[in-house]
């Protein structure tokens, strides 16, 4: 048996930088669990969501939030959502399974993504350089979420505040993704 313990590293080692009014922060301490709806199991899952989280099943392109534990549910595609919640360990699936039981199929995605939060008045101006999605209030209100591509990299974008967006992209290309975001920010500053 090993006497070593494994120390976790985040994709960007906790990146945080201010650019004028715009701030870029790597979000850590968040768990992401994919919840797939079993065939013909949507009603069961809805019920479990209501009971355990007091939250609605999110429609594709939107998110809902638990009033009980702040868990966000990101509607990403028919039959699949992500649960995002504060959790610093490596047992995220157990946490979700405890709440929703066997109403979904769960896959831990916590280590699959780098999560960047961009906030500030210029955030949309920066993002329009790499994001093909219309981020205006009328088209992408607070709570909206969608999959897209930024600089060839698959990305999930979620609007969490008027001037705040959370971007998820593949962990292995985190440095390339950060470079793409930083280039956008530097090009507008």
């Amino acid at each position, binding site marked *: 048996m090993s006497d070593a313990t*494994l120390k976790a*590293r985040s994709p960007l080692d906790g990146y945080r930088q201010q650019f004028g009014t715009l701030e870029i922060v790597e979000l850590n301490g968040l768990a992401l669990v994919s919840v797939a709806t079993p065939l013909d199991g949507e009603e069961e899952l809805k019920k479990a969501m209501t009971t355990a989280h007091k939250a609605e099943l999110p429609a594709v392109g939107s998110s809902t939030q638990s009033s009980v534990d702040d868990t966000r549910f990101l509607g990403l595609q028919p039959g699949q959502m992500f649960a995002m919640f504060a959790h610093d360990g*490596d047992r995220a699936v157990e946490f979700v399974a405890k709440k929703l039981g066997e109403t979904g199929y769960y896959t831990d995605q916590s280590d699959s993504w780098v999560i960047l939060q961009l906030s500030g008045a210029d955030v949309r101006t920066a993002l329009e350089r790499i994001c093909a999605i219309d981020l205006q209030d009328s088209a992408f209100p607070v709570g909206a979420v969608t999959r897209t591509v930024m600089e060839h990299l698959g990305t999930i974008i979620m609007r969490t505040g008027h001037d705040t967006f959370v971007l998820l992209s593949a962990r292995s*290309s985190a*440095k390339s993704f950060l470079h793409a975001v930083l280039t956008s920010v530097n090009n507008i500053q």
Partner: protein
Amino acid sequence: MSQSHRIDGGQIDRSKTLSFFFNDQRLDGYAGDTLASALVANGVKLVGRSFKYHRPRGIFSAGSEEPNALVQLRRGTFQEPNTRATVAELFDGLYATSQNHRGPLKHDLLAINDFFSPFMSAGFYYKTFMWPKAFWEKIYEPIIRSSAGLGRLSGKADPDIYDKGFLHCDVLIIGAGPAGLAAALRAARSGARVILADEDFQPGGRLNTETYSVDDTAGADWASTAIAELSSMDNVRLLTRTTVYGAYDHGVYGALESRTDHLRDSGGKPRQILWRICSRRAILCAGSTERSIAFGNNDRPGIMMAGSVRAYANRWAATPGKRVAVFTNNDDGWRTATDLAAHGVAISAVIDTRDKQPLAAPSGAMIAMGSTVTDTKGRHGIRSITLANGQTIDCDCLAVSGGWNPNVHLTCHQRGRPQWRDDLAAFVPGGDLPTGMSVVGAANGALTLSAALKQGHDEAGSVAAGLGFKKTKSALPKAEDEAAEVAAFWHVGQSNARAWIDQQNDVTVKDVKLSHQEGYRSVEHLKRYTTLGMATDQGKTANMLGLAVMAECTGRSIPETGTTIFRPPYSPVPIGALAGRARGKDFRPTRLSPSHEWAENQGATFVETGQWLRAQWFPKPGETNWRQSVDREALQVRSAVGICDVTTLGKIDVQGRDAAEFLNKVYANGFAKLAVGKTRYGLMLREDGIAADDGTTARLSETRFVMTTTTANAVAIFRHLEFCRQCLWPGLDVHLISATEQWAQYAVAGPKSRDLLRKIVDADIDISNEAFPFMACGEITVCGGTPARLFRISFSGELAYEIAVPTRYGDAMIKALMKAGEEFDAIAYGTEALGVLRIEKGHAAGNELCGQTTACDLGMGRMVSKKKDTIGSTLSERVDLNREDGLTLVGFAPVNRDDDLKAGAHFVTKGNAATTQNDEGWMTSVAYSPSLGHSIGLGFIKRGHERMGEIVQAADLLRGMNTDVEIVSPHFFDPEGERLRV
């Protein structure tokens, strides 16, 4: 020279003097000038030389249609050729040089070409340079190449940066002239999200260059009030210095915004931004372009478009001449005479091709109705014109107007054809516009101010209403309709001298006639034969003249003659802007495994596999070439234990009640009965029966599997599985998600691998051979409770495992494994040693699964289950894929053990010539086997399984090698597989 041609008025800022250089001569202009207007203000007439004949050329127009005034802007690495002086905004320190001449601009050595013009008519290069044959490559071509082309690139990397982006709007308004501004005001006031784009740095279009009034105020003032209102609205985005250059599918438009071209220094910010504008509707308000009339020597500096001449006077307070003549076929030309006269410029004559009552003209001007200009004089600038009656009139500028062409270009970008309007003698947009586009104003043939304003206003109202925006009170701007009658007149037949149609390409009336004479009847052929309408201006001032002359030759009407197809871009887009930020290593993203930093610290050499960087080998001190490192790594795995990062393999989480059935359908071999806790090798076929990909799939529970794919095919296989799930078998309860990024995975291979892992896995995990046999899998914990997955699988043929931990622990895990392995002489090995080990074992990889080979070819024919229907199983039974003399994967060993083998060599029976007809297969993978002490290879050869021991040639014609090889079993090492089961 002190702005000798500057006059009163204009919209320039005289409080800001700007110094600039043209051909090293220092000149002054004002803020608000373009380079062209500043040159005009300084009395500079000669600005360049023509493409073919090196004729002296001057500024011809005042906009992006300019064919002549192309200059090289800036210096050193920033140098950019073919910049149109008419759209180059003046800044302090601007440095420009003329182009296309040898020696000084005034005394161009290549002006001699003009004397040889009879030998250089259209298509001359198709008829000459034929003899002697040997001269072409060594003499003709080098001379032509050194003479051809406009301007010179710096030849160095472009130091500017460029960017791209995406914009969205309800209504995109293209052009901020009167129609565009009226449309923008109406649409914006309705609440629609509006993008108003204009190529000029000062919006307003011809309102800035004419003396019209709108709402009882000067047109330019009305335009700036409108711009001020639009700029103050949150729902409006005003893009100046932005050319919408292309109309694409689904309401998407390409636009190039110039950000720092008007600044001396970009300050490290992008020079230009290429926007992709997604619009719900678009209103094209692109205005119109004035065209010329062809007559003898109509290309001299000082001969300009009439509208441009008054634009320089009205907007930029610069007169192109002090004694100006006008030659026109329409009412608009007369306006040049009256506007310039109002600025105090002498008008020597107005010549109108129409035989009618003259319009109001400045006093002192000679009026000639129903007349034409047949010739001009003045080598470096016009000095006089000759009329059809032989009369000569002195002038230093001739303003020519042949009428106006609506700018229909963007309406044709999706194959729309424009329609002819006789009353305008011009094409207007046809009915088949790009989806969501409407056209108003001069671009739509409404060539007068009031009509343009009304069309813009009305169309924006109906577009906004159609999109569901509120109706708001928005008054139609009031203006008069000016006189705009035109009578078609294209070229002066009496001219004996050459009459230019396309000044940029030196195409004359005679060239068009010659083209017709030589049988080029299609407009497209005319264009290619003469080069009419090519290059930076794309014939904006020339195409109509060319068509008209062609129509005359064929005896057809202009609409019958047709037009060439307008394609994007409307005006030039630098390649740098198209590339954007995708330069150098930023051309594409790079994927790094969590142990990348650790591997870098070990001095690893990396190789690109897809987007991944993988450690190829880990050199040690004293090793002088890669083979030494790879041999050491491979031998160490065979004798002790090695660790290889296999994180990059695709991992797909497959869950659901029907997951097993799903896998059973996508894999050629059976998976339905795979027990929980077991792993199985799987082969996937394409629909056509060809092998697609392979990998192992582990069953973690009744409803959960983890599939691994090859690194290269991870995305393609996931996409394929999603297609199967969603489209082929939507009734199955199965769910997929990629877990490639979730797990850091390491192969631990070698006889001491179990000993090493025992120091990593937690105490309660039994990994003895009995408890955790070959092909076992399980979810375990390591290093004191960290969740992990363990698979007992082997690519190397050794006792081996793959251990996976959540990626966050990947860096720590490689370090822990290496630390734990110290006592077992563990080494890290890279992809090269991995390749050596798998070739020694005869395992197929990407080289063998190349999209041409079947399960039979790979020696896995029996894996394709006949008991079930799987993708590719039926078509894999095609006769030709199961021939007795088909290819078989076998091993190859050099007869002379010192010979190196080369992948790509083709096999030929001994004694036969190495020809395509005798080709019997090819070598797919080779390696030097340190265990065997010689090169080994895998490859496909016909009837391979029957030919063990036969000597064949491995012919490599590309490398000039032909090596005798013996056909052997592909399992070079431990053929019984005893080592991996211990």
